[in-house]
């Protein structure tokens, strides 16, 4: 008691020390713990999704069944989920590399698109044996993505333009540039067939340039893209944790000033990380092109770049953790596609899928915000 009241001062001291007042505070979300937070957010998302589906006159139970049928019910569905996961994983691993160097690349959607366009150009116009052209197309896709990310690196290290802003804005440029390419007969637009109208897409790639598939519809079947993604995820994880380069990269991300004093070149390591991130996104585009669809159209990227970024966020920038998260997101995408094929309106499917993604991302994002607050307070 710090009162200056004479009455209080004159009171005899208590015989027993009063107990310390218990600090009462409102319960926080963090008190729930991560598993409970996941449970809470997923339950909320499921409830909202069910409500929305019921509101458009469909059965939530049937919709849940359709999501399951489309993602896990049989071999074809599981294969489809894994196929969807492959480019997500590649994008996510690339995002992790940049994030570990302290660079927030959010332009994977554009890098993927440019990578796929470069890959398509190589696959369509390079003569040679199929497997060689396939490898060249994938490498070309990676180089295309890296160069596109390189523009942001150049702007950042030369002019100080924030990477977040430049990579984001470069997505719009990539969309327009690729759209122009697939609409121009002199560039990538499909060749005209007598009596037919061509549309804004490339020619179909020759079958010899397709990524091999294991298994056949309607049984379990997957494209080789997932193996490419897994190998690169494992390799990246090892490089980040076990090599000098990985150490320098992490040091740059954790404390750029200390890294500078230790002789880590920010331009070389940081710029390299951004280029590598773009290369992974470009390669994801190459895998999508040669693994599924086998031609490019407007809208080719289909939000894979953004979803891959979310995979990295949920995986908390750990390449190996990105594997199961990418599989989960792949299952969501496959299930969502099947759900829309059952007659549930496309916009509802989009909202349901987005709710599930949000529910998955929320605990990780919340933990990240909390970590930063704690670090800031310290």
């Amino acid at each position, binding site marked *: 008691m710090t009162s200056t009241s004479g009455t209080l001062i004159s009171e005899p001291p208590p015989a027993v020390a009063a107990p310390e007042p218990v600090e009462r505070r409102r319960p926080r979300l963090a008190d729930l713990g991560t598993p409970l937070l996941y449970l809470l957010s997923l339950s909320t998302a499921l409830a909202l999704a069910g409500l929305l589906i019921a509101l458009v006159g469909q059965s939530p139970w049937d919709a849940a069944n359709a999501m399951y049928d489309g993602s896990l019910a049989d071999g*074809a569905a599981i294969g489809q989920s894994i196929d969807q996961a492959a480019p997500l994983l590649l994008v996510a691993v690339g995002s992790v590399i940049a994030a570990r160097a302290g660079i927030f690349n959010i332009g994977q959607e554009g890098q993927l698109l440019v990578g796929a366009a470069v890959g398509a150009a190589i696959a369509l116009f390079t003569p040679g044996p199929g497997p060689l052209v396939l490898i060249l197309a994938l490498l070309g896709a990676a180089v295309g993505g890296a160069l596109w990310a390189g523009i942001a690196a150049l702007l950042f290290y030369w002019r100080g333009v924030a990477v977040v802003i430049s990579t984001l804005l470069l997505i719009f440029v990539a969309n327009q540039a690729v759209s122009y390419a697939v609409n121009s007969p002199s560039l990538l637009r499909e060749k005209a067939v007598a009596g037919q109208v061509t549309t804004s897409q490339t020619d*179909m790639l020759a079958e010899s340039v397709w990524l091999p598939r294991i298994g056949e519809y309607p049984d379990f079947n997957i494209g080789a893209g997932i193996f490419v993604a*897994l190998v690169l995820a494992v390799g990246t994880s090892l490089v980040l944790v076990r090599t000098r380069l990985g150490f320098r990269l992490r040091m740059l991300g954790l404390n750029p000033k200390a890294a500078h004093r230790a002789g880590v070149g920010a331009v070389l390591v940081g710029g390299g990380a951004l280029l590598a991130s773009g290369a992974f996104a470009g390669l994801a585009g190459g895998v999508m092109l040669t693994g599924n669809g086998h*031609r490019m159209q407007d809208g080719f990227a289909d939000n894979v770049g953004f979803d891959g970024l979310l995979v990295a966020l949920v995986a908390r920038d750990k390449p190996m953790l990105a594997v199961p998260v990418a599989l989960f997101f792949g299952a969501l995408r496959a299930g969502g596609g099947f759900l829309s094929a*059952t007659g549930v309106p496309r916009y509802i499917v989009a909202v349901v899928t987005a709710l599930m993604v949000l529910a998955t991302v929320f605990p990780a994002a919340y933990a990240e915000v909390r970590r930063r607050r704690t670090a800031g307070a310290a």
Partner: protein
Amino acid sequence: MKNMVRVIAASVIIPGLLLTACGGGSSSSSTTEAGAPASAGAPGAGTLPANEPDVNKDKKVVIGVMSPGDTKDKGYYQSFVDEANTYATANGWKLVVVDKINPANAVQQARNLCRQKVDMIAIGASELKDALSAAKEPQCKGTTWYISGGQGVTQTAEFTQSLDYINESLYVAGYAAGLILKENGGKKAGYITGPDLQFARDVAKAFEAGIRKVVPDAEMVQTYTGDFNDSGKAKEAAQAQISQGVKVIYPYLGGATDVVTQLANEKGVPALTPGTDRCGTPGAQYAISVIFSPGAYFAGALEDFKKGTLRMGVAREWHLGKDPVPTVKLCKPTGDQAQQLQTLIQDIGSGKVKVDEAVAAGK
């Protein structure tokens, strides 16, 4: 390091287990008997799938509709679904509509429909032609395929298609617009569409040639907004064109069509429909209905399907002046406008007017 080894092991083992658990599953039961041979003496007339319309013999008829556009656009894409709905309701069939399909996902969406054992997959536009590659896959064997092929999709034995010809309907649409221009003393027409695509250019060319048949010195202002459904861009383009003095406007759009027409209505500029008959319908008022809706063609195919006579491997052509659709009509003709229009339609149908040559000549 141990944790990493565990994670790596899990990543390899889990897919392996899934492979073991799921590989070798038998194919779905959606197989069908081999199609009956084409009618004798009719080479190239395709094959007739057995048991139409219940081709997979599961005692129900399910039609899966695939559309690249919004099936609530009150126009081209909606007409396809409306027709299918009419048949489905009248015959107790089930309809599954999947719209706004990205062409890159067309094959997968077709497979998803096949897995639901649909009896027919109907594709609303040739942008989704890649979906047809699923027709040969085992899970799609019990399915008949129809595509609204527009100018044409390379024909194979697995599907049937409807064909129409841009030059016929759009040349006559231009002619009708020319009649209106002549009446209101205008010399300038507007054409607003979405992406700068080859078929959109072809449409513009035929439309302009038709206008110039009536008003030889007419000009046409073209705007490509980049999106068939972006109402904001379409309205902006219409405002710009009207301020340039266009006296008739063609919103060759999807979901953004009505916005342009409503603005045109306010400014007293007549408008044309992109595919459907909207004469006298509530809402936006049209002066000319240019009718080439895929729904009209699909109706013919559904009728055959219902009767069990829809053949795969063949294309049905729809010609202006020979078939009820495509056609063009003036909603409120004055003087002898209707007669002039009808004469041109008949001349094209009879071959008296060589429409391709007229379009190539630009008048």
